[in-house]
């Protein structure tokens, strides 16, 4: 149990946490000869946990945890034989190694409900755990975070809170823009740690929907956050061109902004901005399917009148020209054998033109807005 206490205390004091491959012996040189924190490494507030030692400590903690009389903790009286400091040490260590341990998460929720742990501290703890690669993609942890935000928002109200929160509950919360901005930052860090992190993007999507609801009720702060997020997502897509989730989130933001903008010219400027961004990316990286899908979506937005929902074919140099140009460029560009990349580009361009031919009639007549169900987002 000594290891459990040590780790829990170091976790409390650490500014960053990382897992190290192997065991303590592999990191002895960096840790130094008189490492008082052994088997863990703790330098300048940075905690390194050798994986083998983490699992040893986890085993001890989960055994001790399973022997606790937890029922009395979960019941209304809120008292139990386990001291809450001891409980927290066990659950912190357990969740570090196994972030999907639902009982440990529920104990932490119960401690928050009983007022024995603040939402703030618990949010800080989950943010730390989410910096670990394997933990950053655990759906329960993100759900736990949403529960905490719901709880924090209800502070001062006495209604009973279930140990679960639905997505709808979350999206209708009146969360301040500062809190939402922090959440978006946590999501970004998690996505850097673990690329194509579905649950991090889903959390981001829910936060954006929450923000959109507030913006639509005339909150200027939230509208401003949406604007910032639009720029941030554009920047992210520039650097992660295969990231479908980022494109999906961007369109949630665009639709939310379109609902907030008051003039037609502002709306038009916004859709043009996105269309141009998509086109630029497509010209730079034409072999990426995600960018073709981004362009399709941006194109649809562009040709749909935001006021009426009706479609009109854009004038002059259309996207079709762009696709044809790309296709021909790559057909001609290769000397001798066509490269794999060129083949990909030609295939994507062909798909795009087929999609366009199927959906839009040329000739400039208005067509009712089509469903976008065919897009694989």
């Amino acid at each position, binding site marked *: 149990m000594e290891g459990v206490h040590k780790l829990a205390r170091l976790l409390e004091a650490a500014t*960053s*946490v*990382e*897992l*190290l*491959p*192997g*065991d303590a012996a*592999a*990191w002895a*040189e*960096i840790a130094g000869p008189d490492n008082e924190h052994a088997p863990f*490494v703790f*330098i*300048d507030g*940075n905690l*390194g946990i050798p*994986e083998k030692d983490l699992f040893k400590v986890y085993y001890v903690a989960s055994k001790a945890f399973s022997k606790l009389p937890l029922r009395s903790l979960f019941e209304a009286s809120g008292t139990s034989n386990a001291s809450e400091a001891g409980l927290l040490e066990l659950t912190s260590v357990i969740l570090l190694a196994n972030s999907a341990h639902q009982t440990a998460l529920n104990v932490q929720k119960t401690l928050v409900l009983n007022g024995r742990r603040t939402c703030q501290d618990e949010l800080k703890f989950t943010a730390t755990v989410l910096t670990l*690669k394997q933990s950053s993609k655990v759906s329960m942890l993100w759900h736990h975070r949403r529960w905490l935000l719901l709880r924090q928002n209800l502070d001062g109200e006495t209604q009973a809170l279930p140990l679960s929160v639905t997505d709808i509950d979350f999206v209708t919360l009146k969360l301040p823009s500062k809190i939402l901005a922090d959440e978006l930052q946590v999501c970004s860090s998690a996505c*850097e740690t673990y690329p194509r992190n579905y649950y991090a993007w889903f959390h981001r999507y829910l936060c954006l929907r929450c923000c959109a609801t507030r913006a639509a009720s005339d909150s200027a702060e939230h509208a401003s956050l949406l604007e910032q997020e639009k720029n941030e997502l554009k920047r992210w897509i*520039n*650097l*992660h*061109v*295969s990231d479908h989730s980022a494109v999906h989130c961007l369109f949630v933001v665009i639709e939310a902004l379109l609902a907030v903008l008051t003039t037609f010219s502002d709306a038009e400027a916004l859709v043009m901005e996105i269309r141009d961004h998509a086109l*630029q*990316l497509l010209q*730079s*990286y034409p072999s990426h399917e995600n960018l073709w899908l981004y362009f399709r979506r941006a194109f649809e937005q562009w040709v749909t009148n935001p006021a009426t929902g009706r479609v009109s074919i854009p004038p002059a140099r259309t996207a079709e020209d762009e696709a044809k140009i790309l296709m021909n460029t790559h057909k001609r560009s290769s000397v001798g054998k066509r490269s794999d990349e060129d083949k990909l580009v030609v295939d994507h361009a062909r798909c795009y033109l087929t999609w366009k031919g199927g959906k839009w009639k040329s000739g400039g007549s208005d067509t009712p807005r089509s469903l976008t169900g065919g897009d694989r987002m």
Partner: protein
Amino acid sequence: MKVIALYVLRLPEDKETKDDSKVEILCEADDADNEVGYIKRSAFRDFMKFSTRTIALRTDEGGMQMVEDAGYKMHVLRPVDGKRIVGAAVTDPEYPDRVAQGLLSKLTKDFLEEVPEENFGNRAKITFPAIHSMLRKYQDPKEADPIMKVQKDLDETKIILHKTIESVLDRGEKLDNLVDRSNALSSQTKMFYKTAKKQNSCCVVM
């Protein structure tokens, strides 16, 4: 996509040597702080340098090698008549090859123009702050758009692609042995390589 490190290396006079510690690092810039945690950073840096030096020793004049391994891609360019100077970049696999090539071409060209040859032997005398601004600027290849479009100068270079570092090595050489024997790697880094390899989570991807 990202550029994690840029190096300007100088090959030793002895053309036959396979000792990576003989490849000098004249200039470097990296983003390791954002890439790995604090404790693993020095081993990570060491290993990036070891990999690029090892590849540089086996790159012909006028040639370029691109090696994808362990979730990263190492690009090494050795310009013709470059006074044994080699440019190296460590990126993620998504980073466009053409841009990496253009970046290294510019890095080595600018270095050779700005840094006098007599300073090559003394690292303290080399000032080339552009390597840091290039690392920042080239994070987004679209900003280097002109480079992406200009193909003519670059088409002369012979490019070899590799799926692993092992395939760069000469017949009979093993990466494990090179790591073990290297004078440039600390024992901590060697231990890190062995453990990460055993666990199958490769050395530099965490």
